[in-house]
């Protein structure tokens, strides 16, 4: 570069010196302030712009450049400067490359809005298509394809056709990218465009093949037959394509492999062979992870390392990767269990990352890892974010549910959390404890009677009941009061009230004492508890008085929910309590209605409350891996579902390409950085030749060439296959419809996805089976 600079300096030296002398006084300002000169453009007030027209028409390049920069600055500020279109367009033929580039940038922005003016200059663009500079040719084509006037469609097609045969791969790349725009403009040119795409598919340069894949997907996504002769070559050059092209090319090849062939058949294995080195060496940018995730599900183990490698990258990348890992781990946790330590939560993680990590660690719970993961959840409960605290404590509950050995540790941790001074910690801990206790008691009720004092569930309740004074958080308090009431009954003989645990009346006593200061949700639970205790033992004098006191307090409460509850409970207990306990007998007698017996009231109050366990949401659909919808958690239109394997493959000979004949002197155009495993390459030479065709490919060509001339004759002979193909094409059309019809109900799409998931699981099974045997295609 510096050499070129130097040459140019010498060329320009005399001229430069002259010019500087001429204009030194005029331009001292610009020379002095080399930095910040352009800032002036961006921050210039708008009235500066009135000279622009004059400047654009001037003869001096400097003036023109100045005006163009000013215009671009105004574009940048969001002004509409399309009024200068006519003046700008005149400069498109400027001999100064910098001006020309700025002109094209301007034109690219406004060609759409001012198609008529753009049409006026169409001759200039067409002339630029033959410019010696490939940059100008490419830019002219970009502007030409950007003019949205259907009338010029045929001119654009001609231009694309011309550029597609250009010597510069850069121009060919731009030609490929112009195809989708032309197709959008006027689909009637499709046949011509398909011809161009077909020609471009044969392109030898790895530079433009990715863009060709883009064009193919836009113009003729269903014409996979065009790929037959190119498939093997495309697989081979995949490693040489740049990272962006790889993504598009891989998704096209994957679709070809997926649509046409069974797992284990030659094209599929070839694709996997070609993409494996890419997977194994992919860096921390993760651009192609998307495609790797959509590989056959059985190959997910190959993705483990690339995904883990992305984690230490930027915050943004690790946030996305964690979601993918979490979903994969939901199905096959064993892939990631050894690496659980890499998913530990860091305090400076984003909230959403912390939540994902907790979810992910839950998937990785095994008898070996649970102690560490449990400790992690306990540490997370100290977090400063309430959502994270809640998630961590709930994770503790799920942990004890999944790994029975961990129950005791979980319970200890939760009970110690109840002593915490943080409201969030306490309330979440109590809520989780409630679920745990209920599960515990439910499980025990199948084995031994609940009433034995030793069982852990009851001991937790009794522990909570004894600590009722320390539990301040209303929700937690309400929960404890409810638990105490619900599980108060006991057959064991006790010193206090018969028929219930010792602690039960005590909880009620403490709760009633501060009744007026309690939160409404606690009050409601206290009333319910009083009723429950009275049903358990209607004869105890003290309890009766306590219950009456509660109901009286509640009757005059400020909260109408509490008054309502008191009225309801009072009415419910009419038949239970001894006559003299009801203060206003006569009133009640008059009221009449149904009076429940004690057993009935007991059923109303106690039954049907146990076993309320929150269920996990069904895990996400794997076929959506690598899609936007998975990250945002909402359906995003246009998520693509990979089609199923075809039962019968396509005849391998269709993929033989006469151009593929292995020639000892291949074209020395590109260095193959990642030589294909089949092609031994010389390391001593600085330039490694593109490897020739694979041996298997040429062998098959010899054996079967001439039997099938084209796809039609092939299908004509194999009617069975034809039917298969038709069927799947119909499927695809249906999917397309779903994508296009805006008003389509989401539910439909979801069911489709479910179906395809089941199928892909089948496909997994199929594939694993066929992986065990040598693949038929490769060996024949």
């Amino acid at each position, binding site marked *: 570069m510096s050499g070129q600079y130097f040459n140019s300096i010498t060329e320009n030296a005399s001229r430069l010196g002259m010019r500087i002398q001429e204009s030194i006084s005029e331009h001292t300002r610009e020379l002095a302030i080399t930095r910040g000169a352009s800032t002036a*453009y961006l921050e210039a007030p708008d009235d500066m712009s009135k000279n622009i027209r004059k400047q654009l028409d001037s003869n001096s390049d400097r003036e023109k450049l100045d005006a163009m920069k000013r215009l*671009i600055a105004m574009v940048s500020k969001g002004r509409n400067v399309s009024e200068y279109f006519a003046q700008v367009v005149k400069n498109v033929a400027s001999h100064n490359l910098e001006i020309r580039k700025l002109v094209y940038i301007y034109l690219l922005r406004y060609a759409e809005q001012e198609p008529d003016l753009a049409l006026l200059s169409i001759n200039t663009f067409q002339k630029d298509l033959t410019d010696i500079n490939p940059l100008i040719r490419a830019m002219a084509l970009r502007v030409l394809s950007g003019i949205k006037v259907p009338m010029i469609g045929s001119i654009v097609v001609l231009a694309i056709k011309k550029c597609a045969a250009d010597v510069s791969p850069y121009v060919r790349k731009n030609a490929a990218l112009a195809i989708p725009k032309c197709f959008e403009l006027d689909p009637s040119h499709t046949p011509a465009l398909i011809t161009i795409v077909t020609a471009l598919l044969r392109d030898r340069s790895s530079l433009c093949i990715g*863009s060709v894949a883009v064009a193919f997907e836009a113009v003729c996504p269903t014409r996979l037959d065009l790929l037959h002769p190119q498939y093997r070559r495309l697989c081979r050059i995949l490693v040489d394509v740049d990272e962006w092209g790889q993504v598009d090319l891989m998704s096209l090849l994957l679709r070809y492999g997926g649509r046409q062939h069974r797992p284990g058949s030659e094209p599929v294995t070839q694709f996997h062979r070609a993409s494996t080195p890419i997977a194994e060496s*992919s860096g921390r940018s993760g651009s192609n992870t*998307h495609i790797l995730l959509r590989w056959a599900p059985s190959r997910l183990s190959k993705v483990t390392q690339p995904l883990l490698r992305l984690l230490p990258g930027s915050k943004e990348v690790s946030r*996305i990767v964690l979601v993918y890992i979490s979903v994969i781990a939901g199905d096959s946790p064993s892939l990631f269990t050894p690496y659980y330590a890499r998913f530990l939560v860091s305090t400076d993680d984003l*909230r959403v990352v912390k939540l994902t990590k907790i979810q992910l660690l839950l998937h990785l719970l095994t008898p070996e890892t649970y102690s560490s993961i449990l400790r992690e959840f306990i540490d997370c409960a100290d977090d400063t974010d309430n959502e994270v605290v809640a998630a961590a404590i709930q994770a503790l509950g799920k942990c004890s549910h999944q790994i029975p050995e961990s129950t005791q540790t979980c319970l200890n941790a939760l009970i110690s959390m109840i002593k915490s001074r943080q409201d969030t910690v306490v309330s979440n801990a109590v809520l989780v404890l409630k679920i745990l206790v209920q599960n515990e008691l439910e499980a025990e009720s199948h084995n031994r009677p609940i009433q034995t004092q030793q069982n852990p569930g009851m001991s937790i309740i009794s522990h909570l009941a004894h600590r009722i004074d320390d539990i301040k958080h209303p929700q937690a308090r309400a929960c404890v009061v409810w638990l105490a009431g619900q599980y108060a009954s006991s057959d064991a003989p006790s010193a206090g009230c018969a028929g219930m645990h010792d602690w039960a009346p005590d909880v009620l006593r403490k709760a009633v004492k501060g009744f007026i200061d309690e939160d409404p949700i606690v009050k409601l639970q206290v009333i319910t508890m009083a009723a429950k205790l009275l049903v358990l033992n209607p004869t105890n004098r003290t309890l009766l008085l306590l219950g009456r006191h509660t109901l009286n307090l509640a009757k005059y409460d400020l909260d109408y929910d509490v008054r309502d509850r008191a009225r309801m409970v009072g009415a419910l207990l009419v038949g239970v309590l001894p006559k003299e306990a009801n203060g206003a007998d006569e009133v009640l007698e008059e009221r009449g209605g149904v009076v429940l017996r004690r057993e009935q009231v007991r059923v109303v109050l106690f039954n049907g409350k146990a076993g309320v366990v929150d269920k996990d949401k069904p895990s996400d659909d794997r076929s959506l891996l690598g899609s936007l919808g998975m990250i945002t958690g909402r359906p995003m239109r246009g998520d693509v579902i990979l089609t199923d394997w075809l039962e019968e493959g396509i005849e391998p000979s269709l993929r033989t390409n006469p151009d593929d004949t292995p020639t000892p002197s291949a074209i020395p155009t590109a260095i193959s950085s990642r030589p294909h495993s089949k092609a031994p*390459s010389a390391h001593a030479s600085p330039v490694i030749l593109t490897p020739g065709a694979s041996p298997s490919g040429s062998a098959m060509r010899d054996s079967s060439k001439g039997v099938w001339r084209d796809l039609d004759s092939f299908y004509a002979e194999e009617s069975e296959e034809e039917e298969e193909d038709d069927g799947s094409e119909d499927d695809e059309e249906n999917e397309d419809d779903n994508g296009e019809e805006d008003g389509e109900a989401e539910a439909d799409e979801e069911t489709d996805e479910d179906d395809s998931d089941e199928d892909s699981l089948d496909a997994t099974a199929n594939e694993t089976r066929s992986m065990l045997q040598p693949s038929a295609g490769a060996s024949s």
Partner: protein
Amino acid sequence: MAIDGLIILDSAGRPIIQSGFRSTSPSYALVHIDAYNNAVAAAESKHGSRPGDIDPVIYVPPFNSADSPSACCHVPCGDLRILCPLSGDVDPLFAFAFVQTFVDILTEYFATVNAVTLKDNFDVVYQLLEETLDSGGHPLTTSPNALRDIVLPPSLLTKLLSVAGANFSHTMNAGSSASGPFASPIPWRRAGVKYASNEIYFDTAEEIKAIVGKNGTPLSCNVWGVAQANSRLSGTPDCLLTFTNAHVLADCSFHPCVRLQRWARDKSLSFVPPDGNFTLFEYRYAPAASSTGTSLVASQGGKDNVPLPIALKHSFDITDTSCTFEVSVTSRLTTRDIDGFVAELYVGDSATAIKCVVGRGSAGMSRGLATETGSGGSSWTFDAKNKVVRWEIPKMASSSSWYLRGSFNSTSTPPRPAHAIQTHFEIHSYTFSSLKVESLKVTGEQYKPYKGVRGRTSGNIEWRW
């Protein structure tokens, strides 16, 4: 796979530069800028959440019923934010990868990327945007070597010439049309590179990421390394780089120029380097991987046993309205200094009246027995916006100890600081893996290049309490 465009916002959330957004409605870009600014405002106003805690992918509801929903990916870059709107079936990783590439290109062109440099060079940025991103959202040319041929990097010289009105760029491009853009047979290397002195430098930068549990044992610990190269070699050199201890490298990923087959065979790197700066390969340091392979990694739960270079002790005392804390840190290195040590403690959004004392010596647990007085260069600051106490020690001599004592009050009870201290530091000319280059052979060219290898380490350790 295509993104919708790029928007570069300044620190106030106003757009500086944006790509065309030709395929979408005119309001599309505005909707996304609003969505981002709203998310920032929401994160700042929400109680209990730290400022800047925004999901990197923001869901943007459809602007009107005819639109489809989209998402806004955003990445910080200096004082700028780069937004990348997405819609349809696009992997957000693709968007982030592209934004990262674009930022790398900007850094290559302008050395530092901030609002000022972008405003200074907005015309170059527009040209770059045009060349790297097709109007359909497909990335075009992103290799810095190829881009340098298409878009001239700004330099004093080009500025001078443009001021003088000389037709510099035109002459240059026309003159070199034979070796013009994309004439090179190697996609990642420019053709016809010439240097008076041929040099190639390798920088190995390793980063230790660890979380230390409450009991002082590391819960997770990994060392990630990246080898940056700066190649200034003429012609088409073919390099062969070999290591004496290649077995310490695990999970390697390479620049496209590296021949993978050669690496798989004998763990040596054979490549034709791009011109200028590039990332040759990235790896994880695996101390034990050589002997036992993956089984041991599995039993360790994915953590590597690397001794931490610092030891940190802490004690916290939280009462209803206040919190006092004492932290001491000791360098475990015996021969080297640790540079730029920073410890950060988030004290919760209701913290007030922060007071700290810093000093050198073993004041830590044996209260009042400071062997040396004075701060010894260390200092503390309080970032009131992010509610973070920062403790900085510019240079930590080998085996030296330092302490930080402080207290703060809290308007909410009880105080709620983060239960972990984040520490960052750097160690020059030191690597955990002690990866050694055995030799670098350059074939294909006549000259003998000058070679240089450097190593440095940064640390990122979280200590829970």
